[in-house]
């Protein structure tokens, strides 16, 4: 029983039946203000052209006009679902630039918070992807658990989405045991609840038919488009910045980088589902081995790094974020480049959507896990 769509579709067909379909900027399936101009033949997509920039804020110019500290709240505004990773990336980049030390306890808390945030982001993706496939319940099923993570992070940072929590040289204030206990009880509970997620969706035959062999990213394409993150790992590369260039305290923890080889939506799904487990492993280890001590090292009040340049790579929930800073020795960065993962990941969409059905194209878009303000910056 084969239910896959015909894989080859004659794209060379030229007649007057083609029409242009504006998918977005306001469309339930594009997760934000993304517009894709589609050339369609019936339900088949002949050509897709993403149009970006609806949420463009010129973050890089803003950063040039601000001190390093003032920039801190702004970086979180790019990827509001993985704000902790952005926060960490900026803080680590400036620390690398200035050569600040970070106490071990602070590093552990950073890892815990970032991994919790990664789980929250993946949960939202899980719900939104299934919403793209037309299932409504997973969205709010994921929200019940995401809400608990946000509660924990709100307890830690005082904010639910754009945390702005890490500071140069550590954390703003001491972390109490209540946070660690709540984290552990959440992780223990979520390990059990994850089974429900699999029961509801992973085994579902409709879900399988919708995501298997849909939107296959070949390994050769992955390098050409500079893909990173779970999307890349679904195509067979075990590339994870946490493993390859460990930052914070990731080299101390034992975890594996889940990979799949088929490169389709199902592979990307499975990778992310496995990352829940790995994140929980990391959190457990980090909580169990957290040392006592200060959470902030001595750093000067005014950050004035030496001349030079630095590139800091961080694995956000969506892939590899590289913050490239050129410093001219003043209080403000001379040039900041945010190499955001969604941007590169979205660029492959036009290629994947060619010759697909409209429904599949939206499933692919969902499986790429976009945050449009991050793409636009």
């Amino acid at each position: 029983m084969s239910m896959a769509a015909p894989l080859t579709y004659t794209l060379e067909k030229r007649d007057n039946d083609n029409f242009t379909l504006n998918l977005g900027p306001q469309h339930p399936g594009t997760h934000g203000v993304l517009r894709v101009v589609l050339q369609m033949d019936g339900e088949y997509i002949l050509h897709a052209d993403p149009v970006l920039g609806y949420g463009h804020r010129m973050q890089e110019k803003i950063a040039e006009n601000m001190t390093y500290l003032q920039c801190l709240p702004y970086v979180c505004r790019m990827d509001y679902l993985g704000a902790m990773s952005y926060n960490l990336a900026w803080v680590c980049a400036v620390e690398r630039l200035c050569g600040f030390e970070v106490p071990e306890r602070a590093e552990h808390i950073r890892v815990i918070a970032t991994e919790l945030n990664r789980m929250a982001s993946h949960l939202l993706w899980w719900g939104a992807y299934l919403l793209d496939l037309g299932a409504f319940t997973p969205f709010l099923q994921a929200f019940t658990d995401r809400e608990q993570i946000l509660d924990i992070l709100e307890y830690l940072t005082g904010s639910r989405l754009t945390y702005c929590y890490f500071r140069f040289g550590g954390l703003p204030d001491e972390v109490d045991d209540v946070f660690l206990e709540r984290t552990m009880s959440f992780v223990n509970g979520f390990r059990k609840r994850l089974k429900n997620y699999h029961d509801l969706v992973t085994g579902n035959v409709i879900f399988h038919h919708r995501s298997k062999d849909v939107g296959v990213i070949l390994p050769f394409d992955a390098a050409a488009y500079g893909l990173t993150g779970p999307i890349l790992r679904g195509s067979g590369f075990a590339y994870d910045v946490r493993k390859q260039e460990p930052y914070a305290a990731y080299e101390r923890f034992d975890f594996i980088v889940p990979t799949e080889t088929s490169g389709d939506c199902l592979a990307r799904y499975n990778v992310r589902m496995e990352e829940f487990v790995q994140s929980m492993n990391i959190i457990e280890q980090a909580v169990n081995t957290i040392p006592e001590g200060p959470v902030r090292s001595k750093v000067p009040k005014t950050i004035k790094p030496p001349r030079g340049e630095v590139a800091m790579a961080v694995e956000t929930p969506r892939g590899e974020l590289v913050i490239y800073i050129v410093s001219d020795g003043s209080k403000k960065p001379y040039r900041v480049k945010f190499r955001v993962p969604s941007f590169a990941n979205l660029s492959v969409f036009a290629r994947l959507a060619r010759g697909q059905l409209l429904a599949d194209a939206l499933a692919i878009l969902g499986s790429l896990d976009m945050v449009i303000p991050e793409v636009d910056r």
Partner: protein
Amino acid sequence: MIECCYIKDIIRGFASLLVGMRVTMQNMLSRPHTVQWPREEAPLPPRFRGHITVLPDEMTRYPKCFACGTCARNCPSGCITVSGKKPAGARKKVANSFFLDFTRCSLCGICVESCPVGALDFSRHYALADFDGRKFQEMDLLQDLVSPF
């Protein structure tokens, strides 16, 4: 063999649907997670970041802020305007006006951290709404404090 797989696939697929339906039924029988605000209230976390407030001095009840302007300089959005002057006979300045443009504030808390005397703190007000936007463009944070002037 093909027929066998065909039927097996159908049965397995059907079973997977039933498993999914079991999960939603379990959901239905469990308690909803909604907190029905405003009839119920969710607890505010201790580090909740509302808009900032100026704290009074314990001794004098005057504003603790002495209008050094560090917060205004450090604010990424430039939403704080503060000025102060010396009350008669005092050695230090005291703030006589402290305005927050809450429409631009991003609640990052850099001002609270950078204050050298700890005169700023987050308030615990969250249900802020008004018909007049100007009220939030110029929030007078010294309103509830005793003024030495």
